[in-house]
């Protein structure tokens, strides 16, 4: 049957990978929470970007390994990445439109 074929072709991660993934997720989460409690770090300029990068990494590895997008048909990749991009761009666009920069530049007053 065709989709069994498709399945067979694809490598599926096993416990070996899964446990590493879980460990990394756990460690990143620990680091995230830990930095939250260090006022100097929270005050630093790198805090927000750092957190965003860490959560993006978590996001990516869950999607790639647990949702096995890395191994699956490339169709699924486009079905997910396309909308995700539109969603992220829309979110950024909205944040800009409601930000102080956009409003301050509006002049007129």
């Amino acid at each position, binding site marked *: *049957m*065709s*989709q069994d*074929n*498709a*399945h067979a072709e694809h490598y*599926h*991660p*096993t*416990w070996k990978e*899964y*446990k590493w*993934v*879980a460990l990394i*997720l*756990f460690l990143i*989460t620990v680091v*995230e*929470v830990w930095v*939250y*409690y260090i006022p100097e770090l*929270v005050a630093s300029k790198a*805090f*927000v970007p750092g*957190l*965003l990068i*860490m*959560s993006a990494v*978590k*996001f990516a590895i*869950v*999607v790639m*390994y*647990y*949702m096995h997008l890395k191994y699956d*048909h490339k*169709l*699924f990749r486009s*079905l*997910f990445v*396309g*909308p*995700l991009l*539109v*969603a*992220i761009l*829309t*979110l950024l666009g*909205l*944040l800009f439109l*409601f930000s102080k920069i956009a409003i301050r530049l509006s002049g007129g007053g």
Partner: protein
Amino acid sequence: MSASADAAHGHHYTTTGLDNRKIAIWAFIGSECMLFASLISTYLIYKGKSLVGPFPHTPWTDPSSGKVFPAILNIPVTSASTFVLLMSSLAMVLALSAVENRGKPLPPGAGAWDKALTSSKLWLWMTCLLGAGFLAFQAYEFTSFVHEGLTIRRNLFGSSFFTLTGFHGAHVTAGVIWLGSLLAIDYKRGLQPSDALAVDLAALYWHFVDVVWIAIFTLLYLIPG
């Protein structure tokens, strides 16, 4: 390679060789990206715009009564619930892998752990319980917030916070019900490798809900401001 095997389940010829349902669930997940992007945008747009407290990261004194409201978010509790949800994802992949490998002989010298890895019931139970655990944390969080004076009507923060996390919680609930149904099938007739797809669909949904929480945890809880 014949359509005969069990046509009842739609194993007709398909263009990509993939199952329709798997394509549909990915399209659905794409759609959910926009759903949560709208919710998260709203929360961020309204961040710091509430006229009255309580606020997420800073205490607030009610000017009329002098009552002090502490910062509302409880990071230790939420970190714990985040951990629970992450672990449920691990349980979920193990459940899927158990179903996929059902019936394959264990390698020689396999220990108890290897055997445990083959139990789809165990891992489905784990996933459900961890999911329910997450919901319990959320229920605790919501009730304590209400006690501390933050309701969904209180201010912009309350409205956008409860709606966003509530939507996420509703997704988790739906996931638990879905997994529960799979568990019921597992008890009734045992999930077979031919059911892997059905489990995979639930798993994809489950992990997506997890991934959304990863974003929420960072954007709502950890970034003050």
